């Protein structure tokens, strides 16, 4: 299922040894932070979290490909690894899981990451709109900024995704539809969710070139994403990448996967651990050694501790923000409600 036309030579280069090591460090950081976030939920530090155990390669590989000077990423709720690979402030990112503020506290314009989105497929059309804006603003050198839209196999059932694909193809919008097919939409497996064989196969109906990639191979994901981005950047219209991966843990910290799959199924479905697999490859190729892996893990642990301290220190936002941030220009009714809220809450 690869219909993405080949690129002119030299358009994307294979990652250097230094980049490979960086990818590994990112994956370890993400793995560690992700498992910690689940523990934080169990410890009552945060009320909920959407884990991504097993999806590190799909997230880090694709997020690493983003050009922060011109691209823009539209995430769902499980893209912690993408955010980390893009260098987003992780305390601000985790604030949404701490129930401090919907969407997180990071600056979307500065970080190039749209607010976290709870409505599946809610932002896929936004990505198309943003991408079309790039075409309208135009760049003479054929180096368009590209929208990267993340969604799951389940989300691909939403009508909005079909409208988005049709719009993007008709308007030749520079958007990469990045599908993380992790095998499940809560309890529903892909084969009971996606008709037509795969999401990549559907893209054909809209004339969108697509590539299906081993989503547990970080280098393959990086290369496929770079390929798709380069395709869009040169004004060829949209592309779709379907990263075939597996959600190894629960859907969220309130999910119980034991109700819909057995441990044996989970083991088989998960296949080889993407992190361990990459480690073996780096070792075999002589790109990294045990000392490097140990240092990467130590750095990940230190980072996690800092982020945990950061979110624990994060108090609730002042209540008046609830009223102040609804509009750019507030309304008399809202001002009155804010005033009576202040009066009543000071009163108690």
């Amino acid at each position, binding site marked *: 299922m690869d219909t993405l036309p080949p690129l002119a030579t030299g358009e994307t280069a294979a990652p250097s040894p230094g980049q490979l090591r960086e990818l590994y460090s990112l994956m370890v950081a993400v793995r560690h932070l992700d498992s910690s976030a689940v523990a934080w939920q169990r410890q009552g530090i945060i*009320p*909920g979290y959407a884990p991504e155990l097993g999806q590190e390669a799909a997230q880090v590989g694709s997020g690493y490909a983003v050009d922060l000077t011109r691209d823009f990423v539209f995430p769902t*709720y499980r893209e912690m690894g993408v955010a980390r690979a893009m260098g987003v402030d992780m305390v601000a990112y985790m604030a*949404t899981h*701490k*129930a*401090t*503020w*919907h*969407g997180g506290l990071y600056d979307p314009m500065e970080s190039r990451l749209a607010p976290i989105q*709870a*409505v*599946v497929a809610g932002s896929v059309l936004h990505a198309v709109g943003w991408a079309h804006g790039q075409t309208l603003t135009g760049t003479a050198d054929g180096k368009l900024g590209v929208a990267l839209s993340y969604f799951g196999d*389940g*989300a691909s*059932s*939403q*009508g*909005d995704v079909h409208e988005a694909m049709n719009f993007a193809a008709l308007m030749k919008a520079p958007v990469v539809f990045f599908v993380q097919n992790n095998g499940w*939409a*809560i*309890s*529903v497996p892909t084969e*009971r*969710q*996606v008709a037509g064989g795969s999401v990549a196969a559907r893209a054909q109906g809209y004339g969108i070139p697509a590539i299906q990639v081993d989503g547990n191979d970080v280098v393959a994901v990086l290369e496929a994403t770079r390929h798709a981005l380069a395709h869009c950047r040169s004004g060829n219209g949209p592309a779709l990448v379907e990263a075939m991966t597996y959600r190894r843990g629960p859907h969220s910290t*309130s*999910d119980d996967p034991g*109700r*819909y799959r057995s441990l044996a199924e989970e083991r088989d479905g998960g296949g080889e651990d993407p992190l361990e697999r990459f480690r073996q490859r780096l070792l075999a190729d002589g790109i990294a050694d045990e000392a490097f892996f140990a240092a990467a893990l130590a750095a990940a642990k230190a980072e996690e501790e800092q982020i945990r301290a950061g979110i624990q220190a994060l108090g*609730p*936002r002042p*209540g008046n*923000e*609830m*009223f102040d941030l*609804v509009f750019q220009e507030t*309304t008399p*009714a*809202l001002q009155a*409600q*804010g005033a009576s*809220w202040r009066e*009543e*809450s000071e*009163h*108690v």
Partner: protein
Amino acid sequence: MSSAILESGAAVAHGVERHRLEGHGVEELSMQQALNRALDEVLATQPKALIFGEDCGRLGGVFRITDGLQLKYGEARVFDTPLAESGILGMSVGLAMAGFHPIPEVQFDGFAYPAINQIVCQIGRMNYRSRGTLPMPITLRVPSFGGIRAPEHHGESLEALFAHVPGLKVVSPSTPHEAYHLLTYAASLPDPVIFMEPKSRYWQKGPVDFARGPETIGSPTGAKVMRQGRHLTVVAWGAMVARCLQVADLAAEDGVDIEVLDLRWLKPIDAQALATSVQKTRRAVVVHEAPLTSGLGAEVAQLITHGCFDTLKAPVERVTGFDVPYPSGDLEDEYIPNIDRILNGIKRVLEYRRG
């Protein structure tokens, strides 16, 4: 599919008997269990009833309301759909036209929005459009309201939106008992009903009296006095009823005797019950979680004003959420009417003096 339906329908004839036997007496159940029992009874007694939605089948729904039903009634009658709310509700229209009784679930209130077009433009209008030849006996279950520190869109109060749509009926239970009876009743209606389940009450237990009749459910289409009082009527629905009963207990310590009316039906509203209660107490406060402006509180206040203009001692007060998007968990307690805000509203009414 239809032969499977017929077979399971036949198989269940005997289940109906069994269910009636089980259904005697009073049992202590959570609202989740009570709703599950109601759906079980509907599937057993109505061979054309179908339950479907996201994760409703094998998982039993993320709130387990449909737990065990697929196992009992088969995949033809209880099934998982793709993740597409417009698809779920649009398909319900066609199933209703084919003579089925769809009982779809939207996983969380906020995900009814992607289906609004089908709910408003199609489900609410098909009976009218077809001059009554295509009724829409669809019972749409919507886990509703906040109070569980959920992510965005997992706690919204859509009652005013639904109640405003011609062609829809809207109801919300406040206890396990109400949940069981209102759901079985809603599912017997030939019209579309939006059934708003207060998710913060799912795990609270209470007695469910399975006996039918006015002594246990009152009028199935009406409001219900949950506590008698003389000084003031508090009108609430869903999760707010329990909180208002707490408020009434607190007020009683100060000698204020509050009547709590559970509106239950948000459309059509039982105007008679409002009038009867407020004619007695002469004062009223409406409490809801939804934003203030154009909320259902305004509708209730108007009905009370109309029914009790001469007897009212004070304007009807509202204690509600605010005109802000439903906030994140940390601000949730500021947003949902709390005991103090409700008591303040009561105080404003009791202390009102004509100018």
